[in-house]
């Protein structure tokens, strides 16, 4: 198992490198000259070619592509993502607190999604085909189809404006979490509980379940075996869900003015603050790779067959 983890981590390194290269290339393809962005942000009235050239030199933009990439990479490895073009602040100081806020929202939502989908998935699988199962799936289908900003507007209007129970925005107390987490849970649990349900169902007809019954094992024990095998699929899906939620908090964060990465990145994109955008994309990509590796490791821990696979 230890060897497996080391191998898994080593395998992630080239992927991380490829992602960093891709991020850098894509950002550099943008038609907007960063020097112009900086000058505009500083409120320079007339932007001359000479000024642009000087700013480019200051930012190191006059150097060849490869040199700039290597510099950027070396800086990134030390968590130094440069300074914002707009405010001049260190990107890390901007992103750090926002990342923490987003991670909080993401983790609370992920826990809520996991609990809701496992509980609903197991109940629906055990009741498969009956009324409860069918109505749950129908409801989930409808709720998943509603766009989250529409749902957010509806819930804010009802719980915050009409009933005045919950805050409309910000991140003051645990009550600020309720609506955003609810909305993220509704948009994702509908999907993931189907996964849990169908993998439970596909296990119900397996031979080992029949042999367990034929050996006289109690239903309780058999259900635990089924759950153990079904959750393998679910665990990897859940781990992959975390970076997906991380990226998709953009909508919810903007609706609720949550001081997180999502709000920050939208502002950065609108003002073409390249260092911030680069860092945001990189952080998301890295979290995808990390959570993917974690999900593989958890899976290997539960599923002995995978351990020798890599």
């Amino acid at each position, binding site marked *: 198992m230890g060897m497996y983890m080391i191998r898994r981590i080593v395998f992630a390194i080239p992927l991380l490198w490829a992602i960093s290269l891709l991020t850098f290339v894509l950002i550099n393809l943008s038609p907007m000259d960063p020097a112009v962005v900086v000058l505009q942000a500083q409120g320079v009235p007339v932007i001359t070619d000479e000024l642009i050239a000087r700013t480019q030199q200051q930012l190191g933009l006059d150097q060849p592509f490869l040199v700039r990439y290597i510099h950027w990479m070396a800086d990134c490895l030390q968590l130094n993502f440069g300074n914002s073009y707009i405010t001049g602040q260190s990107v890390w100081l901007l992103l750090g607190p926002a990342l923490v806020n987003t991670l909080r929202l993401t983790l609370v939502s992920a826990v809520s999604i996991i609990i809701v989908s496992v509980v609903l998935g197991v109940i629906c699988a055990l009741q498969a085909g009956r009324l409860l199962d069918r109505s749950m799936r129908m409801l989930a289908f409808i709720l998943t189809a509603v766009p989250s900003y529409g749902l957010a507007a509806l819930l804010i209007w009802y719980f915050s404006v009409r009933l005045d129970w919950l805050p409309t925005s910000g991140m003051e107390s645990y009550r600020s979490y309720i609506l955003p987490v609810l909305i993220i849970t509704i948009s994702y649990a509908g999907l993931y509980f189907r996964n849990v349900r169908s993998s439970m169902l596909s296990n119900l007809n397996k031979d080992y379940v029949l*042999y*367990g*019954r034929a*050996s006289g094992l109690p239903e309780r024990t058999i259900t635990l075996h089924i759950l153990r095998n079904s959750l393998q699929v679910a665990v990897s899906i859940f781990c992959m869900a975390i970076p997906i939620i991380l990226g998709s908090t953009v909508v919810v964060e903007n609706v609720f003015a949550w001081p997180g990465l999502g709000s920050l990145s939208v502002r950065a994109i609108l003002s073409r603050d390249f260092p911030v955008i680069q860092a945001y994309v990189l952080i998301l990509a890295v979290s995808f790779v990390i959570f993917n590796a974690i999900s593989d490791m958890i899976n290997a821990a539960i599923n*002995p067959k995978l351990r020798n696979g890599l």
Partner: protein
Amino acid sequence: MNILEVDQLNIKDTHTGKVIVDNVSFELRQGRCLAIVGESGSGKSLTCRAIMRLNPSSLHQTGRILFRETDLNALSAREMRNMRGRPIGMIMQNGMSAFDPSCVVGVHFRETLGEHYGWSRSVIDAMMQEAMQSVMLNQPAQLMNRYPHELSGGMLQRMMIALTLVLKPDIIIADEPTTALDTLSQQEVMAQFIHLRRTLGSSMIFISHDLGAVRHIADDVLIMKSGQIIERGETGQLFTAPRHDYTRQLLSARLTLSDHFRQLINEE
């Protein structure tokens, strides 16, 4: 004396209304081995699972299944569960898929024996290791800690036989226990089946396509075709003087097959 009497067993698919097993009656005599032979889809597996009441709920079964004096078909789910494993045991066709793939095989033995006898782990391990050695599995202690995918089909089949040896059921139901194996392991597993019968003296229902194996182990034979029993009799008699056309066909199919092989070998 009959240990099991199946009386007018009828199995119907409630979704399609199709009758899959059609009023089948037969009996298993104490200490004998009854083979069920028939083409694929003739309802052999469903009949055996009906005895243990293990068919999915979409299949509705009627009729009486008398085990000693009790009608299994009339028992509550809980009472039926107590019948499974110890009084009536089962050996599956494919050892590879019969054990939970995410647990070492020892887990199944401990859960099963713990459930039926309430033994401690060390007692179970000692009993299982002895039984495994008697079915020619070496280093049983290590084998108990292996995952199913780390073992061969023949080994897993013998492990099921070993568990049955410890459980000592009155009736053993084996559904094509050698079909998934290569010829060599087939012979090994068959040898262990004969050993199992000799040791326990249990009655057995043995489903197989392999008429050679049937001839070797069974005392009585049932021939099934599309959900009905079309011929029955003692093994020797049925093999030498089949009455029904279909039986003759089955037997000659086997002969022509082996003729074909002989021809192939001679040509080489």
